[in-house]
């Protein structure tokens, strides 16, 4: 049996926070009745909250023709969608082919050891989230990581750790 078949397990995948639903209303007005726009709605929702909160998804289900099961299916199918909030710094570790042969695994290991979390998780202080991505398209700078939209190339494990320590220091100020 997969994890998703057990309903308790499934509910644990979500974060049920108190959120303000008002920014979601214009999104539903724009896309709610346009057929085939569930992905657009979820993308807009994630833009607002940084992830897909349970209450927002329920709101989408109640106000569009989409069933809860359909929404859950789409939200878990695509790697872009997150069911949990992210930290202040989102580290995207490129795991493309060029990065792999140039040592992305070692870089990733060093980052995970430094932050003591694994890809997909957020540090307890809410500062860093690590995610693996397939290709950032900067293959000639491999290995690459992207933090909050800025790319860092030609990394070594120790350089990557230094970059993260500097960010942590800055955030501490």
């Amino acid at each position, binding site marked *: 049996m997969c994890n998703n078949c057990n309903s308790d397990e499934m509910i644990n995948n979500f974060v049920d926070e108190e959120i303000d639903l008002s920014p979601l209303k214009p999104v539903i007005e724009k896309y709610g009745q346009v057929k085939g726009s569930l992905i*657009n709605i979820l993308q807009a929702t994630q833009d607002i909250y940084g992830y897909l909160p349970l209450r927002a998804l329920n709101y989408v289900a109640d106000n569009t023709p989409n069933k809860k099961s359909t929404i859950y299916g789409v939200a878990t*199918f695509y*790697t872009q969608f997150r069911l949990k909030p992210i930290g202040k710094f989102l580290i995207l570790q490129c795991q*493309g*082919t060029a990065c792999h042969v140039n040592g992305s695994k070692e870089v990733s290991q060093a980052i995970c050891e430094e932050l003591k979390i694994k890809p997909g998780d957020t540090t307890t202080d809410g500062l860093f989230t690590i995610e693996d991505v397939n290709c*950032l398209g900067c*293959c000639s700078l491999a290995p690459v990581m992207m933090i909050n939209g800025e790319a860092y190339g030609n990394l070594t494990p120790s350089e990557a750790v230094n970059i993260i320590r500097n960010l942590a220091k800055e955030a501490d100020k």
Partner: protein
Amino acid sequence: MKVLVGLGSCGIAAGGKKVLESINNSVKENELNIAVEPTGCVGMCFYEPLVDVIDGDKKYTYGHVNAKIAKEIVESHLKNGQPLKEYIIYSNEEPDIYVVNQLKIALENCGQINPENIDEYTSVGGYEALKKVLTSMSQQDVIEQMKISGLRGRGGAGFPTWFKWDAALKSGGSEKYVVCNADEGDPGAFMDRSVCEGDPHKLLEGMIICGYAMGSNHGVIYCRAEYPLAIQRLNIAIEQARENNFLGNNILGSDFNFDITIKMGAGAFVCGEETALIESLEGKRGMPRLKPPFPAQSGYWRKPTNINNVETFANVAWIIYHGPEKFAAIGKGNSKGTKVFALSGKIKKGGLAEIPMGMTLREVIFGIGGGIKGDKKFKAVQLGGPSGGCLPENMLDTPVTYEDLGKTGAIVGSGGMVVMDETTCIVDVTKFFLEFTCEESCGKCTYCRVGTKRMLQILNKITEGNGVMEDLDELENLALSVKDASLCGLGQTAPNPVLTSLKYFRDEYVAHIMDKKCPSKKCTALLTYEINKEKCTGCTLCARKCPVQCIEGTVRKPHEIVQEKCIKCGNCFTTCKFNAVEIN
């Protein structure tokens, strides 16, 4: 005089924005009246950030520019007319070999024009092909020209483009769709991103011509969400094309109407498959449909739909403008025209290279790419990403055509070309691709869903030193079954990395299984870490860094690793400042 700064995603990642800022500031300070324009990626990623200075008929290209060098360029070259020779990587008088050996059609304007300015596109012949089509050609004429050109799909499968257009034209009904597949999911390929960022109007022009030929009024671009800059520039281009009546109603005074919208993908490799892409366009999980019916009969919203890849569309306007015979004269056999490859991995000059079909792999890797980084020994080239295969050195003289590469078991694919040297373990790379396809399998077909996982388990077993020779037969059997019993391209091609590596690099598998050794020293479970007593100074750094305290020794005396306790994390190897830790 005019200055161009390369601001594709790769240029920006290398620091291109700071360079542009520095040049702009410096030009202002010196009160120079010189146009400074951003441009797309010229393909020479290994030299980024790049700055071009165009002075009359002379063109100089500066590489590895930073803010400081940028300022010097302004002060010496722009202000005083003295080119800074030490930073110039090539000029049109002394071109770089990387450029000389290429032939640019799809990428002809990338890195040459400002992609956010439609006038620059029209000044180099842009939208002339569309004018020609709308004023003097019938729908059949256009399709006939595509047939003469011999253009085939550049996304991977290599299906004749004219055939798809013709099938869509013959499907009745007034509601039809042109879809552009810009969901470039192959890790290691980025030519579609480069076209969207560097020459978006060329893509639009190709789509509009396709729309005319098949009788469609709606175009949709399905673009990866990971390419925000591409989406932004496409949006600007669409807006400009509407203002200039290249899109909209009664285009250029004809009775043809056409408009284009963009849909963002949400990250799923399987959506590169055309029927999965259609499902995703409709807002659903991207799971492939059974074919037939083909999209040309029943596609987006069950209406006739033609789907082509970005690079395919980027060839269309050139073919109409220069004539299909000229295109067909390039290439070899049934593989006409050019193909863009993304060179990466252990190669000296990584970037985009557009080559005439029929060039050999050796010419591409050593002639254009400059050979292997650090002059190490070439081991393999991986073509076609997770759907392709690894080829060894003795196959380097294979011409790059759909037929010749197809015979080897690899594919042209979308154009990823990842070069590997002697330090790359083929079993590890194969495992890497299977991890990818296993993760990306949508789960619809049992063989793809379970088969890729079982193959991955076997590979894990082998790289951990627990493999037996029977595993290789099992692996091959599974690979062939997954190929046969999967609905879409993902499952049908996922076993290719396994099959080609078993065919050409079987001895590496055998070394892992029989000798329990990884010849490239990559698979950690098969390695031992030892301290060279002569090099060790007894600084104790490794002992302090060891997470399981398995390094023994006293200060200033050579240390030793207790093998039974060692977890092979490699910490001692990376921390030692005297290269005393050796891997065997």
